[in-house]
């Protein structure tokens, strides 16, 4: 274990089969681990900025990584080789495979005079070389002079819509062919940090800076449940096997001057999906004391 490197983990995602875990962090090198043992299988080297998001396709063949270096990279998972780099105008916040693995969508932040954007790319598996220009580009202009940044993107069932969460608390459904907004809801008053769907693509859960996480119906956008905490929620995930919700985050607002030495606190909270009731908390700390508890491993180069 290497300690003392403060390179926050930005995302953790299992593949479809659950045997692998993909992680991205600010150390520029996403990694893949065996989920049963914690053994690191490989890394994906090439980005020059924080990797904010990644997505693995259905059959664990191709990986997409979205980075603050304004690129998305497409990787062959088995070999770790970069197949293509897709240059964007600003830092890329999110990336998502379409069902079928022939298309993917990205969201990028505004940069200098460029607005934030949603892009759709076509990367068919039957060709060797792909166009690095998007098939569709949706421009996200300022609203009343204020920049609106997308924070999370997903495809709905049968690639019918693009589901995008924003830092003003809005969730929108876009048509992936025309780029038109089909539906919009004000899900939260504050920033939505992340949005995730269940595997059946029937529900999605938002995690917000307003200390709550909310469950919605993907099809009609109906608000179903609210999970309340006393801290900003940074990530939330719906269990596939139990009616449980896991919330990640809970970092307290901190003074910049007192951050050193006290970072490292994190916790995961467990909620019941239906009853909205919190029934457990797992706290994590530094040090070898916990080494017996978890398979703990570090993300370093």
């Amino acid at each position, binding site marked *: 274990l290497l300690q003392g490197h403060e390179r926050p983990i930005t995302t*953790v995602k299992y593949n479809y089969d659950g045997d692998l875990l993909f992680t991205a962090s600010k150390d520029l090198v996403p990694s893949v681990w065996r989920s049963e043992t914690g053994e690191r299988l490989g890394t994906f080297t090439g980005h020059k900025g924080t990797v904010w998001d990644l997505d693995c396709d259905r059959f664990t063949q191709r990986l997409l990584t979205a980075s603050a270096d304004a690129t998305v990279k497409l990787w062959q998972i088995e070999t770790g080789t970069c197949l293509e780099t897709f240059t964007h105008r600003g830092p890329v916040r999110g990336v998502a495979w379409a069902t079928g693995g022939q298309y993917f969508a990205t969201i990028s932040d505004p940069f200098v005079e460029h607005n934030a954007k949603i892009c759709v790319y076509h990367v068919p598996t039957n060709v060797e070389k792909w166009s690095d220009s998007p098939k569709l580009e949706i421009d996200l202009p300022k609203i009343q002079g204020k920049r609106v940044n997308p924070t999370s993107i997903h495809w709905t069932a049968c690639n019918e819509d693009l589901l995008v969460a924003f830092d003003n608390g809005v969730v929108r459904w876009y048509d992936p062919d025309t780029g038109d907004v089909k539906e919009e809801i004000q899900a939260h008053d504050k920033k939505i940090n992340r949005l995730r769907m269940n595997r059946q693509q029937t529900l999605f859960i938002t995690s917000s800076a307003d200390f709550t996480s909310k469950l919605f119906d993907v099809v009609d956008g109906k608000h179903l449940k609210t999970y309340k905490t006393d801290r900003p929620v940074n*990530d*939330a995930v719906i269990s596939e096997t139990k009616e449980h919700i896991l919330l990640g*985050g809970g970092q307290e607002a901190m003074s910049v001057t007192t951050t050193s030495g006290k970072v490292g606190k994190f916790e995961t909270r467990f909620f019941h999906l239906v009853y909205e009731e919190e029934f457990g908390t*797992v706290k*994590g700390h530094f040090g070898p004391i916990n080494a017996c508890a*978890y398979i703990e491993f570090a993300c370093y180069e």
Partner: protein
Amino acid sequence: MYLTIVFPQPVDINPNGRNYASGAEDGYVRLHHFDKDYLDMKDPVPEEGEEDEEDDIDDEEENGEVAAAATPAPQ
């Protein structure tokens, strides 16, 4: 001067439900394996006045050492 620093602190649960992973700002990823108690747990229908219910979700390794304290629901 005070600033709010928000770290990503991502979580994901294995689709097979047997483990979950959480990432922290210290650069560590923690892989938590659920123990048998959690996997066998039936979700009780909450009733009023039933506050001291214990739904343990302790993490443990193969040797069964209990790691994280599960707290009962606050309200």
